[in-house]
């Protein structure tokens, strides 16, 4: 139990953070918002998966991936393929030239289901694919790059190119992928109408629980030896290498972890929104995901969630109030955060709120507690 506490929750502070986040997602949001807005929050929380993945890959691993949208897209497409097949049963597609295949295939004169679609009749296979497909992809990219010590900016640009290529491929092969329209009009999951209000509530909670689970998993990874090695690698890669560790393998692991986390988000996106679009695979969403993580604080798993919510909240509010000027606000927000709050929301929390909480705790002097806050004090003294 004790090791669970310190490893999976990240100690007292980690546990409090997680509890607040859980309360926020599971209690505050559903009480505060109607189902339409809650569903929107659910959608944003799926982006938070990608942001959490980026905290691991970028914040701790030091690798900035500009292709996180690719993995989000893979997860989303896997789920969308399953749902689309279910929505395309021979009865409801009877008016097509070839009944029983997805409508967009019929429009593109595809007369039989492509082979790689076949296994997606099975939900089990789909769920496995959501995890395994991005894993394989990330492994191939990671192994090719990290074994050859490609890093830093190069890696970012190359992942960006991969995102661009995949978008062109997905859009170009529209008979098999739905092209630029994406895979739309998804209706049921094993006969369960995913568009009903009840389903939306249920999916929202599943999504939230998965997100919390993923954060706990990341905390566990970070509290292990691997986590410390990651930090060490980020700061002085050569020293870790000289100490006898295979740096590339750790990087590949982190990259794969981030990819799988994003893909889970993608799959949840498809379920909650009811379609998948190639616009997620492209460059713009990938950069936006980085921005979510940056605004939340690139070293904070929980911060990434708040960052995602804040940016998307801003987007929604700005664009509803100023449909033709909102880009000014968004652009300014990114610049201000990068320039003045490089540690994002979690940096603000650490420098202001945490200290204030610390004072509060000291003031009401519970024995033992100030001791535990010492690390923060030293951090402050060191000018962090």
């Amino acid at each position, binding site marked *: 139990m004790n090791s669970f506490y310190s490893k999976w929750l990240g100690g007292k502070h980690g546990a409090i953070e997680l509890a607040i986040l859980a309360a926020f997602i599971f209690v505050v949001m559903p009480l505060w918002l109607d189902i339409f807005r809650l569903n929107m929050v659910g959608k944003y929380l799926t982006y938070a998966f990608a942001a959490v993945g980026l905290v691991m890959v970028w914040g701790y691993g030091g690798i900035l991936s500009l292709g996180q949208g690719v993995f989000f897209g893979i997860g989303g497409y896997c789920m969308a393929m399953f749902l689309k097949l279910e929505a395309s049963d021979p009865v409801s597609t009877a008016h097509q030239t070839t009944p029983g295949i997805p409508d967009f295939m019929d429009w593109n004169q595809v007369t039989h289901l492509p082979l790689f679609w076949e296994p997606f009749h099975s939900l089990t296979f789909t769920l496995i694919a959501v995890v395994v497909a991005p894993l394989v992809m990330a492994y191939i990219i990671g192994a090719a790059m990290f074994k050859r010590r490609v890093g*830093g*900016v*190069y890696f*970012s640009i190359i992942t960006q190119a991969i995102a661009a290529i995949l978008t062109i491929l997905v859009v170009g092969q529209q008979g098999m992928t739905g092209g630029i329209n994406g895979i739309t009009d998804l209706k049921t999951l094993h006969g369960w109408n995913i568009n009903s209000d009840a389903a939306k509530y249920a999916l929202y909670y599943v999504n939230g629980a998965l997100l919390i689970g993923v954060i706990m998993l990341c905390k566990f990874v970070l509290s292990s030896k691997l986590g410390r090695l990651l930090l060490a690698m980020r700061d002085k890669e050569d020293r870790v290498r000289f100490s006898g560790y295979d740096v590339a393998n750790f990087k590949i692991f982190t990259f794969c972890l981030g990819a799988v986390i994003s893909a889970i988000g993608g799959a949840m996106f498809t379920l909650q929104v009811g379609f998948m679009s190639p616009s997620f695979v492209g460059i713009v969403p990938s950069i936006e995901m980085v921005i979510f993580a*940056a605004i939340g604080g690139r070293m904070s798993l929980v911060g990434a969630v708040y960052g995602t919510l804040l940016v998307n909240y801003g987007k929604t509010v700005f664009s509803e109030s100023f449909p033709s000027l909102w880009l000014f606000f968004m652009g*300014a927000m990114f*610049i201000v955060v990068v320039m003045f709050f490089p540690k994002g929301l979690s940096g603000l929390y650490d420098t202001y709120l945490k200290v204030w909480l610390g004072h509060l705790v000291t003031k009401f002097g519970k024995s033992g507690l100030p001791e535990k806050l010492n690390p923060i004090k030293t951090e402050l003294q060191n000018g962090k």
Partner: protein
Amino acid sequence: MGGYSLSDLWSILVMQGFSGLSLFSVLLLMALGLAIIFGQMGVINMAHGEFMTIGAYTIYFFSKITEKYFPGLMPFYFVVAIIAAFSIAFLIGYLVEYVLIRHLYKRPLDTLLATWGLSLIMQQIFRSMFGAREVSATLPNWLMGSWKPTPDIDIPLNGLFVMAMSIVVTLVVVLFLYRSNWGLKVRATTQNRIMAGAVGINTRKIDRITFATGCGIAGIAGACFTTIASTGPTSGSLYIVDTFLVVVFGGSASLFGTVASAFTIAQAQSILTFFMTNAMGKVVTLLAIIIILMMRPEGLFTSKVRK
């Protein structure tokens, strides 16, 4: 290819060769500015495309003014406008460096985020100033149509112009970088900022001018592209990925690498799109670039860069 006469094939071959060269000069012109900013300074300028758009709108603006007030000068305005395109982009680049970039040199990946925000703002400024629709500059007659060395061969004049501009700009950049005092300082700063500072180079000033020059060259590129492509608030986003690919593929700090990489990519894409469809040609080119980058991660030609 049966059914075509030999002279047909010959003229297609000539024109195909030219369109490869033309694409090469387009890519080179796009990438030169970024090669300086990203290659020499390590700044990831996601707003590079928007600096090109500044150049394009400058041409549009000048063409409208000239058409309205000095119609007799139409054949000549383009030259003035290109200089203006450079100057305006240079000035804005200078300002951006001062306000934004100089605070971020120690955090190169953060420049990506900040300049991304900048690009959003710039797009919206274009939209507010020039409207959301695409515009078209009236080009002088000497830039329109084609040159016909034989009845079957058409060499695009605007292609020739872009080619000439990219040669001029490349030569000027090479001369400045490798034959001038300023270039020496830039290279010194690239290789070792602290030492450069220690020997009395004002590295901050060098940075500012280097960044602004890169932006100015983007302005020239954008100005030239009004002759072959669209001018709209989001036109710049069409170029940004290709531009980065050229620079990275060439090896970031090597100007020669940028030239070689623009040439390789242009020829590959041009030949592939001739034998495949346009979209497939592009995909195959991009895939090839990625595979080569995986084998040669530091690009085709490398030189020492500060990390």
